[in-house]
């Protein structure tokens, strides 16, 4: 496989889930710190696609969080949610809602529950991020958010191909 351990691997374990796994060459304590400290999150959450403009973290159960970034062409992308479970250096569970939902899509439908788990072995840390959507449509829309041409084009093309197999 051409994938190195430094590549995030994304799989879809069930119709509602997205699982992202990535290994870091650092102790768990530091990965946790970089993942939960606002000044540090600002330095990586942008995914090299813009600048983080808001990074609010109230790291306690019931506490709120909000991240926002602005892309070079001026588009703001923002997410917010609540901390549902916080086990320092082990696990953090949050709700997450994308703030740019299309009209007619309710927060309840689009909200996800995200569980980040940190495990250390031989001084290296594996971060496992499980994203659980309310349903498959939402899950697919989240994955498609990274796609330039949009999911619908892909689905149309695939449907045509699947149809031709009959």
């Amino acid at each position, binding site marked *: 496989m051409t994938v190195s351990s430094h590549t*995030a*691997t994304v799989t879809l374990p069930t119709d509602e889930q997205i699982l*992202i796994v990535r290994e870091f060459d650092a102790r768990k304590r530091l990965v946790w710190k970089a993942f939960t400290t606002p000044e540090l999150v600002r330095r990586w959450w*942008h*995914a090299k696609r813009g600048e983080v403009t808001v990074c609010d973290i109230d790291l306690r159960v019931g506490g709120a969080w909000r991240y926002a970034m602005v892309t070079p062409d001026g588009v703001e992308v923002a997410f917010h949610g609540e901390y549902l479970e916080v086990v320092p250096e082990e696990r953090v569970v949050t709700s997450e809602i994308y703030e740019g939902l299309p009209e007619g899509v309710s927060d309840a439908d689009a909200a996800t529950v995200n569980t980040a788990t940190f495990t250390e072995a031989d001084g290296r840390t594996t971060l496992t991020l499980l994203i659980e959507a309310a349903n498959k449509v939402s899950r697919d829309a989240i994955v498609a958010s990274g796609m330039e041409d949009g999911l619908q084009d*892909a689905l149309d093309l695939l449907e045509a191909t*699947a149809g031709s197999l009959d």
Partner: protein
Amino acid sequence: MARAATTADAFNAVAEPRRRQILDLLASGERPVNDLVLLTGLAQPQVSKHLRVLREVGAVDVRDEGRRRLYSVNGPALRPIHDWVKAYEQTWSERFDALDEVLVQLEQEEEDDDRE
């Protein structure tokens, strides 16, 4: 048991890491099952099972050549599905590459603190 393949099945089929590995191997040209067994290190029944799933959703084609069955990627069908998960994965890879840099800086800062 027999039912029509759906797009949902296809996306899930291709998202499975072993099956993506098989698709990557087939991307360079058609191969018999034995090749895939050697290259993946998986047992033959497992490879056959993955190939069956991929065939059911139209991601791979098969043809007989003498006594061999050769598998190949159905490129046009596959590309959008592959891109679908790949693009999302790319976002997270870039995010985590940036996190790598933060971690290196954190380690450096801690070492500096220890020295003072």
